[in-house]
């Protein structure tokens, strides 16, 4: 098991290295070259020259790359063009908001998706199955940001039962300990603040959960249908095991294997969806940080966020692979 983990960790290194080369190349392709792109409006011949020195643009390309790698590894992504703060500090401030939202959305997608997929497979071809399939198709066909806009329009603007944007009402003076607003409210005993944060979470979570939900329903349904045909299920049936035991132990457990991999792959969708959802709901997380960065062509910020997103994605998939090997011993052998 340990050997598998080490091997898998080593495999991630070349991926990350090539990724760094890509980001490095991306910086060089930016309009006006990296120095001007990183300086933005502050670009004067003097500042460009000094920036070129910092970036080492007057040196051979290999030296430049290693300097870039060194800066990246030490977390030095420069200062944001918008706020002037170090990009890493900005990211640190916004990080909990995105984790709170995407965690909530993923939970929603799993809690609703797996049962629906399972029920659909058990009643294959019947109304509930067709409804589930139709939902998954719609989940993919409806643009995430439009779903957000629609939810906001109906529930916040027309019905007025949920707040349209933000993470917490501005009139609430809540104490923030961890940066996770719901958790903060519970920890400090400010239950009204926690409840307000929950209300703010509902609409963005639904919008963000839509695509992962559709994918999870689909994979669960397909996996359950596949497993039901397996020999070991027939064996279990002929042994006279009760339907309940077969469904729980044999079908569901085996069907959840592909589902768990899919959930890992969802992190990518969540990160991308967060950009759109956070923008719609003015959620002060990494996604809206990115979309503000796009509007202002804040390249240092974009660079750091893109690298971070890819890093998170690679790491999560690594974790999924490892957990997969824990659940299913067959994987370790390969």
């Amino acid at each position: 098991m340990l050997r598998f983990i080490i091997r898998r960790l080593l495999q991630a290194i070349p991926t990350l290295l090539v990724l760094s080369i890509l980001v490095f190349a991306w910086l060089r392709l930016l309009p006006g070259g990296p120095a001007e792109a990183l300086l933005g409006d502050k670009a004067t011949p003097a500042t460009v020259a000094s920036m070129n020195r910092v970036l080492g643009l007057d040196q051979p390309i290999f030296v430049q790359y290693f300097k870039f790698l060194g800066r990246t590894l030490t977390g030095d992504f420069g200062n944001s063009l918008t706020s002037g703060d170090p990009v890493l500090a900005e990211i640190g401030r916004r990080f909990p908001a995105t984790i709170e939202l995407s965690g909530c959305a993923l939970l929603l997608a799993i809690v609703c998706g797996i049962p629906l997929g399972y029920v659909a497979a058990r009643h294959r071809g019947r109304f509930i199955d067709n409804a589930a399939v139709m939902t998954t198709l719609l989940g993919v066909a409806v643009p995430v940001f439009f779903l957000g806009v629609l939810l906001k329009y109906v529930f916040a603007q027309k019905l007025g039962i949920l707040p349209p944007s933000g993470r917490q009402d501005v009139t609430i003076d809540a104490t923030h300990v961890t940066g996770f607003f719901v958790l903060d409210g519970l920890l400090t005993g400010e239950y009204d603040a926690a409840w307000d944060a929950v209300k703010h979470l509902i609409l963005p979570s639904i919008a963000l959960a839509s695509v992962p939900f559709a994918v999870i329903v689909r994979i669960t349904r397909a996996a359950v249908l596949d497993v039901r045909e397996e020999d070991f299920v027939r064996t279990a049936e002929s042994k006279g095991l009760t339907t309940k035991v077969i469904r729980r132990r044999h079908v569901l457990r085996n069907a959840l294997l592909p589902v768990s991999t899919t959930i890992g792959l969802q992190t990518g969708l969540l990160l991308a969806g967060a950009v759109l959802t956070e923008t719609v709901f003015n959620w002060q997380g990494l996604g809206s940080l990115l979309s503000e960065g796009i509007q202002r062509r804040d390249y240092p910020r974009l660079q750091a966020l893109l690298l971070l997103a890819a890093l998170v994605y690679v790491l999560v998939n690594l974790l999924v692979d490892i957990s997969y090997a824990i659940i299913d011993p067959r994987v370790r052998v390969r």
Partner: protein
Amino acid sequence: MTGPKLMRRKADRIDELAGSGGTSLAADAVRRMLRSPVAITGAVITVLFVLLAILSPFLAPKNPFIPYDALKNTLRPDSIPGPMPGFVLGSDQNGYDFFSRLLVGSQQTLIVGVCATLIGVFFGMVIGGLAGAFGGWVDTLLMRFTDILLAIPSLLLAISIAALFSHGTQWTVIVAVAVVSVPIFARLLRGAMLAQRASDHVLAATALGVRRRTIVFRHMLPNSMGPVIVQATLTLATSIIDAAALSFLGLGDSDPSRAEWGLMLGRSQDYLDVKPELAFYPAIAIILVALGFTLLGESLREALDPKNRR
């Protein structure tokens, strides 16, 4: 007759024999699709959409690319004129005829979807085809590269590419969306071709001394196209949706007269209180078209799956 030529003749004969028994997979797939209501729904939506895209310039009652004074003069910050004589759905936020733009928008949307998909398919097939045909270190190198592209969440990859252009154009969006699908097509084609390499008919062709180029282009590639075609149909849907997302984030075409559904949807967000139709109609159009392509792609996938052959 020389040796290799004779062998090729033989190989062709084997091909004929193999093809003569029963129906071909393609004919079988078509037959199955005609029986499936899902496939027919998808096909009908797709055909209607393509027809609309082709005919829309003739159907549009007004010029969709110029603002009308009659509409512009009635624009207020808190109201955008609704239906009025000559303008079926009234104005959009800039004083253009909303109905004509909705119609013509189908054309631009189709162009964005098709161009992005074709570019993605082309480069994906070159990469995947090379990897699948040569194997060995070529395969390892190319697949490492696609893995990296796959390691970046797709929309973020599209965003980073679109951000490279200082001013958005239609092609910014097309290129950004296309790049995202390249690694997917490459992986698919490579996988299918590797499976073909190990198959008996390729082994037979190799044993008969058929040239590698012939094996790749006549035996492996045609047999590997199924998954690529399915994925291309599905990609048409996602390209249109991703293009809309890029427009929403402000990375789309910066030309205000451009009529494309994603662009119209992305730009109308600020006018939701004033005239929600400006967002809703293009959104419904996009959802319908995306559904159409998805239904078609899914039923194609099912129809081409040899497991379902009976």
